[in-house]
C-alpha cells in the first residue's frame, strides 16, 4: 500500500477517487462549490487518464437524466452537484432511486437559496432525504476519498441496488487542502471489482425500463425500495470491515470520539465534527468528561445503533446544519424518533448551526459544551431548539 500522503482538497480527493473508479460515464454540470471536481475530472479525461465518456450537459436536470440513461444502459455512471443543482435535478433524483440504478453522486453541501448563498449547509441534501438515496456524510478529504469506493460497492451490492450520495461540506472540505493518503489504482480496481449489475438496455431480450406504474403495482415497487433500505446497514458494515482489513482504514457507521468515560456528547455530521473533536480535547484538559458522536450515514438512518450509542449518556446536544422550518431539525428529529420506545433517555437539545457557511468556531463549540453541562445538571433546556451563533 502507498504510504505517501498527498495534499488534496476534498474536491480533488473526490475527483481522484472518481479517476481511480474509472466510470464508464460521467455526466456533469458545473456549480459552485462542486466545480473543482468537474474541472479536475475533465483534466483526467483530457489527458487520457480515464476511459470515461464524459457528457458535459446543459443543466443538472440533464446531468441526472443522462446519468440515469447511462446507468440504465449498464454503465457505471457518476455525477456531482450541489444545492440548486440538486434542486434542479430533483425529479430525476427520485427516478434514479426508483429505477434502482446504482449511481454514485458527489454532493458538495451548499445552502439552498434564498437569498442566494454559495457556502455550506446541509439544506440541499436534507431536502433529498426521502428520495430513496443512501446518504453518506464525510468529515474531511480523507473520508470523502474513502467513501467513494465504499459507496460504489454499497450501491452495486445485489441486496441494495440503490444510488448513493457522498456528501462533503462545501468550501470547508471541498476547497481546504488536507493530507490525504490515496490508494494505488490497482488496489482500487481490485476492491471495487467488476460491475455485477445488468445492462438493462443491452440485454439479450428487449426490456422496458420506466413504465407507467399505477395503483396495481406502484406500492409493490415502493415496498421493494423500503425493503432494499433495510439491507443497507448490514451491507455497509460488511464493506467497511473489508475496507478496514484490506487497507487498514477503519470506518464505522457511527463514530465515537472520547466517549468511554463521557457522560455527555455532541452529535453532528461532516466537517463541524473536526472542530468539535478539537474542542473536546481542550475541555478534556480541564477535566470535563465530554465526547462526540458522528453518524456517517443519514439514509438509511441507523436508528437502533444511534439509540444504543447515545443511551449511555446523561445529556446530548445535536448539531444540525439545516433547519426544518416549523418542525424538528433533521438529525435531531431522527434521534428523537429513535429514542421514542427507549426506556432510558438522555436529556436532549438541538442547535442549528453554520447556515449559509457561517463559521462554527471554537468559541461556539465551547458554548455548546457549557450548554451541555447545564442540560446534564438541570435538564432545563431539554427538548429545546436554538440557533447557534445567530445575532
Amino acid at each position, binding site marked *: 500500500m502507498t504510504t505517501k500522503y498527498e495534499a488534496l482538497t476534498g474536491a480533488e480527493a473526490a475527483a481522484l477517487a472518481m479517476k481511480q473508479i474509472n466510470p464508464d460515464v460521467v455526466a456533469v454540470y458545473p456549480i459552485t462549490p462542486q466545480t473543482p471536481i468537474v474541472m479536475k475530472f475533465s483534466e483526467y479525461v483530457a489527458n487520457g487518464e480515464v476511459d470515461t465518456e464524459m457528457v458535459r450537459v446543459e443543466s443538472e436536470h440533464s446531468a441526472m437524466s443522462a446519468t440515469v*440513461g447511462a*446507468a440504465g444502459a*449498464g454503465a457505471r455512471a457518476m455525477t456531482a452537484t450541489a444545492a440548486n443543482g440538486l434542486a434542479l435535478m430533483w425529479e430525476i433524483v427520485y427516478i434514479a432511486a426508483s429505477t434502482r440504478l446504482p449511481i454514485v453522486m458527489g454532493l458538495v453541501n451548499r445552502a439552498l437559496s434564498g437569498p442566494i448563498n454559495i457556502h455550506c449547509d446541509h439544506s440541499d441534501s436534507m431536502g433529498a432525504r426521502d428520495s430513496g438515496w443512501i446518504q453518506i456524510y464525510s468529515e474531511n478529504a480523507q473520508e470523502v476519498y474513502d467513501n467513494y469506493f465504499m459507496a460504489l460497492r454499497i450501491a452495486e451490492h445485489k441486496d441494495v441496488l440503490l444510488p448513493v450520495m457522498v456528501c462533503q461540506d462545501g468550501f470547508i472540505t471541498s476547497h481546504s487542502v488536507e493530507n490525504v493518503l490515496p490508494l494505488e489504482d490497482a488496489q482500487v480496481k481490485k476492491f471495487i471489482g467488476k460491475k455485477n449489475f445488468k445492462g438493462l438496455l443491452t440485454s439479450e431480450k*428487449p426490456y422496458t425500463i420506466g413504465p*407507467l406504474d399505477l395503483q*396495481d403495482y406502484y406500492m409493490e415497487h415502493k415496498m421493494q425500495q423500503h425493503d432494499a433500505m433495510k439491507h443497507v446497514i448490514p451491507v455497509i458494515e460488511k464493506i467497511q470491515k473489508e475496507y478496514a482489513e484490506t487497507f487498514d482504514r477503519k470506518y464505522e457507521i457511527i463514530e465515537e470520539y472520547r466517549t468511554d468515560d463521557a457522560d455527555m456528547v455532541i452529535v453532528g455530521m461532516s466537517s463541524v465534527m473536526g472542530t468539535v473533536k478539537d474542542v473536546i480535547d481542550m475541555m478534556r484538559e480541564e477535566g470535563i468528561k465530554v465526547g462526540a458522536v458522528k453518524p456517517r450515514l443519514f439514509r438509511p438512518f441507523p436508528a437502533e445503533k444511534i439509540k444504543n450509542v447515545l443511551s449511555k449518556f446523561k445529556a446530548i446536544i445535536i448539531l444540525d446544519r439545516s433547519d426544518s422550518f416549523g418542525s424538528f431539525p433533521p438529525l435531531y428529529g431522527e434521534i428523537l424518533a429513535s429514542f421514542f420506545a427507549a426506556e432510558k433517555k438522555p436529556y436532549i437539545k438541538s442547535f442549528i448551526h453554520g447556515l449559509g457557511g457561517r463559521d462554527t468556531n471554537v468559541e461556539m463549540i465551547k458554548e455548546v459544551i457549557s450548554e451541555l453541562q447545564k442540560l446534564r445538571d438541570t435538564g432545563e433546556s431539554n427538548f429545546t431548539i436554538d440557533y447557534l451563533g445567530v445575532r
Partner: protein
Amino acid sequence: MAVILKNEINKQVPLNGGHRMCPGCPVPVIVKQVLMSTDHPKIVANATGCLEVATTIYPYTSWNVPWIHNAFENAGATISGVVAAYEAMKRSGELPEKNKDAKFIAFGGDGGTYDIGLQSLSGALERGHNFLYVCYDNEGYMNTGIQRSSATPIGANTTTTPVGKKSWGKTQPRKDLLSIVAAHHIPYAASVAPHDYNDSMAKSKKAIEVNGPSFLVYFSPCIPGWKIASDVSFELSKIAVQTCFWPLVEIENGEWSLTGDSKRIAEGKKEKLPIEDFLKTQGRFKHLFKPKLQEDVLKIIQNDIDKSWNFYKKMAGYTD
C-alpha cells in the same frame, strides 16, 4: 426509393397491439414507420406523454425493442446518457456483439419537445450525440387534457385557450421548431407527414443512418384533441400538406429542400389548397365557421400559413 410493403409485412413490428392509445391515433404508425425504416438494432428513449403512458401500463409493454422512459422534459438528455454508455462499453469491450451496430431513437410529443424538453433536446443536438429525435406533434398537451402548447396553431380551441365571448382560441402562431433545430446545424432534420409513408420512411432511414444527431417532426393528428373522427388521421395528414399547413421539408447538411406534395406545390405541379380546407375538418376550429364565419380570423391564419410557406420555399431555393 419506394417502400415495398410486401417486404415489410413479415417483419417483426416494433410496437405490438394491446396498447392503450386512442382508437385511430396515428402515433403507433409513426413509431412503426420510423423504426421499420432500417434493420439496425434500435434502442428507444421516450419522453413522458401519450405514447409512453399508453404503451407501458405495468405489467404490460407493447415494445419489442429496448426502451427507456425517464421523465417528461429529458428524452434528449436520457438518450445522451444511453449513447455515452454504449460508446464507453464499446471501448471497454463489454458490449454484446449484437448491440454494436445499435441506433438510438428518442420519441417525444410536442409538449416534451417544443416546450419543456427544448433545452434538453438543444443540449443533446449541440453535443453531437449519434441519435435521432422524433417529435410526434399533435399540437397540444393532449395527454393531460388538450391544453395549448407552443406547437398549437393559431385559432385552435384548447382547454387553456378556450373559445369564449372574447376569445377565438389561441392567438399566437406556432413555434417554428424545425428552424430552431436546423440552427444547431445538425446533419439531418426533416418534417414528416405519416400518410406519405414513402417520404416518411425514406426520411427516417436517412435520419437514423446519418452520422450525428438528427431530427424529425411528425404531423400527428389527435382524435380527441382535434375533435375528429377516428378514421381520418391520414386523410388529414394529406390535406395538411396540400394546404401548406404542414410543409414537407428536408434539411441535409444545411441544404433545405421540399419533398412530396410540398415540392409539387412549390413547382406549380399541384394546387395549393386554401387553409379553410384543413381547418373545417376539425372540431377545434369549428368556432371559426359557426355560428358565423369569422373571416377576419381566417385571414390572419391564412396570412400566417402563407408567411411560413414562403419562408420554407425561400429556404429551399424557390423564388416566386
